[in-house]
């Protein structure tokens, strides 16, 4: 008689849900945002995405091979890079970058022409940006090696790799979104915080529609088109990859904070107030970050209420940075700040077992009154 497998229960599993399947779901959900980014910002975005995903994959593979000191085919096959989480990191990173980044001292950019259009600078018409591609590789190195793998790989990293890499570029290379005008450009291409509360914005025609379809400049590539992000959000919610409530909580509380910090203090009212709130919510990386980055498994709390606290914290810090801070874009900083708070949240917010009850506090038994010290009674100072 042949020997059968013996193992502990349970013997059946949910076959259609695997780590790789979840990562592929996220990639599919990011696809509409990528397509719209390519439509709005041109082929540069696609190039960035390919370079980011490729280098993220290569770095993870190399990291595992070097640490194992084994370069055989078997080691390549068993490397953790095949779970595709590195591709998700790469794509989110690429969609978080502007379409071109220029570093003055390097300048590997090929100029096509110097168009004589008023207000539009030459870099808007870069044919091929070598600087951007180099920075993509550097950012992937930071994201995968420094943030993800050094802390223990998938599920162990404390900070979101893509957000950290973006902030790294921001601080180290002066990454800005100022010179990344899209093809259709209705909003003045200046840095965010100043125009969010200004008059220019609230007077713009069709603000809602343009913000919604992503027809605006001055942005990271993937974050503009609300429709594409909504499609991705719906897909992830239906596939139960993310909890559908969390992005809604972040966006909702961000709208409230925008009202409190920006709309009301600036004495806006009526349509301008609504426009201001809409601009805060739909511009910048808020929606993209709340759908794809704040719901990252390893850097968010493990309970629903922990996630609510996490989401409200992200919205609060985003709005604080946008309205009172010096940076135009607060989302990635807010995510990183709240990432650091996750262990604290998880320490205090965890579910009580089914049927848990608080033990009634036992009152300490009243100790019998201690007899007064002999000498005091003798003196007659204190009498019972």
């Amino acid at each position, binding site marked *: *008689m*042949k*020997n*059968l*497998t*013996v*193992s*502990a*229960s*349970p*013997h*059946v*599993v*949910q076959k259609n*849900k*695997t*780590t790789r*399947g*979840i990562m592929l779901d996220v990639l599919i959900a990011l696809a509409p945002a990528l397509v719209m980014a390519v439509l709005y910002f041109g082929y540069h975005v696609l190039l960035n995405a390919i370079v980011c995903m490729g280098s993220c994959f290569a770095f993870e593979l190399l990291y595992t091979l070097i640490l194992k000191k084994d370069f055989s085919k078997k080691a390549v096959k068993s490397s*953790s890079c095949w*779970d595709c*989480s590195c591709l998700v990191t790469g794509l989110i990173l690429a969609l978080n970058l502007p379409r071109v980044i220029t570093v003055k001292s390097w300048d590997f950019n090929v100029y096509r022409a110097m168009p004589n259009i008023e207000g539009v600078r030459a870099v808007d018409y870069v044919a091929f940006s070598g600087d951007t591609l180099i920075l993509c590789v550097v950012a992937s190195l930071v994201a995968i090696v420094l943030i993800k793998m050094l802390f223990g*790989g*998938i*599920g*162990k990293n404390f900070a979101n790799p893509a957000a950290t890499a973006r902030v790294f570029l921001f601080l180290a290379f002066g990454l800005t979104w100022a010179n990344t005008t899209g093809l259709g450009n209705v909003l003045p291409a200046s840095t965010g915080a100043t125009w969010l509360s200004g008059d220019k914005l609230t007077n713009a025609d069709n603000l809602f529609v343009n913000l919604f379809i992503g027809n605006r400049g001055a942005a990271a590539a993937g974050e503009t088109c609300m429709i594409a992000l909504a499609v991705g959000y719906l897909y992830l919610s239906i596939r139960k990859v993310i909890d559908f409530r969390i992005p809604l909580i972040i966006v909702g509380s961000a709208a409230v904070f925008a009202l409190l910090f920006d709309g009301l203090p600036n004495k806006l009212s009526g349509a301008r107030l609504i426009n201001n709130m809409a601009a805060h919510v739909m511009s910048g990386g808020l929606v993209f970050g709340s759908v794809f980055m704040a719901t990252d*498994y*390893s850097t968010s709390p*493990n*309970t629903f209420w922990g996630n609510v606290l996490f989401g409200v914290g992200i919205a609060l810090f985003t709005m604080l940075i946008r309205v009172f801070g010096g940076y135009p874009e607060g989302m990635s900083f807010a995510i990183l700040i709240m990432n650091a708070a996750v262990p604290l949240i*998880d320490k205090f917010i*965890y*579910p*009580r*077992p*089914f*049927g*848990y*009850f608080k033990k009634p506090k036992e009152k300490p038994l009243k100790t019998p009154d201690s007899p007064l010290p002999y000498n005091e009674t003798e003196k007659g100072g204190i009498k019972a």
Partner: protein
Amino acid sequence: METFPHGIHPKGNKERSANAAVSEFSTPEIVAVPLSQHAGKAAIAAVSKGDYVKVGQKLGEADGAISAAVFSSVSGEVTAIEKRPTATGHCEHVIIKNDGKYDEEKLAPLKNPAPEQIVRRIADCGIVGMGGAGFPTAVKLAPRDKVDTLIINAAECEPYLTCDYRILKEYPREFLLGARYIAAALGLENFFVGLEANKADAAELLEKTASDNGISAKTVLCHTKYPQGAEKQLIYAVTKRKVRVGKLPSNVGVIVCNVHTALSVFYAVEEGEKSYKRIVTVSGGGVKTPANFWIRTGTPVSTVLDACGGIGDDAVKLLIGGPMMGFAQSNGDISVTKTTSGILLLTADEVNSEQSGPCINCASCVKACPMKLMPVYIDACILSGDVSGAEKYGAMNCIECGSCAFVCPARRPLVQSMRLAKKKIREKGGKR
């Protein structure tokens, strides 16, 4: 419809054997009756080699308070008493050569029994909880607290298993009368029957039978969700009472009994028949003809499988019980007992054969756990040797239902971690 928070939705696969009527399984030449078919201490052998035994004759005497008597399932000569493997370990087996006559030794039927008589009869017939745990029913029916509700657990939430469903369909009168005897033993007039929604037809039949026979039974349909049949979860679904951590269900005035237990009680009281056979579901992708059998205890599992087409080449796992909480066996050389609800032969497509990967912190297990624990942290804590951390996240409350490991996308063996954590906490002297 009633239910409990969290839980999972595994594929039922009950259609394979749901419509197979229960048939008598022809008992083989040699049977090996284990003396430990229940929770608690194993029975002490009451026969010796060479004795002639009848059907229903006592083979093993209950040892202590939490134990149950074991009875012969065939008539014939005892050829040996030896240690053999069971589904979960080893125990003494009484090996009997079946003479095929089935001379039966029965007790006198009881007419209008008093509660104490019923409990006495249940103990005399060696009836144990036949859902799988095998807790002696007579002990259960003598609770310390006042009980005001009896729930008959007909949820049968384990995939594949259909033995309880067949009882509801084929023996509704016997089952309901048996349940009424249990209720009477507790001094109750009426009782609840908790079913999953996929057994709605059985619920209708039960209601009809109950009204025909004047039995005040209330059927409660619950969501088809695993583990709906877990004791605390079913109590919550039916009565909305929460059994407190570390307490027995009788603490909230509830007793839960399995369907098959109720059926056995009926036969014990009305016919004086002892508990020596049960209905077993034989199913799974590796079984050619899925079936439900009345099988006498001590029948080797391999004989049962041979009758259903044998162990094919595509079979990779043999399970005693359901696929969520059952025990995998390396071969069929073990005996059917009072608690064997199913014999499953599963193929590679059905079982999990993947290697476990690193935890991705997705918290699926947290959303699935019906006891509201944090398997993700208990796993991490116990693997890094942090016993008090595992205790903090409630490892001692785990019911080992397997929901967490079922949903885990990284295929982590979370239930094993839970068992390890429980063992370590007990060693440390910790409590719930």
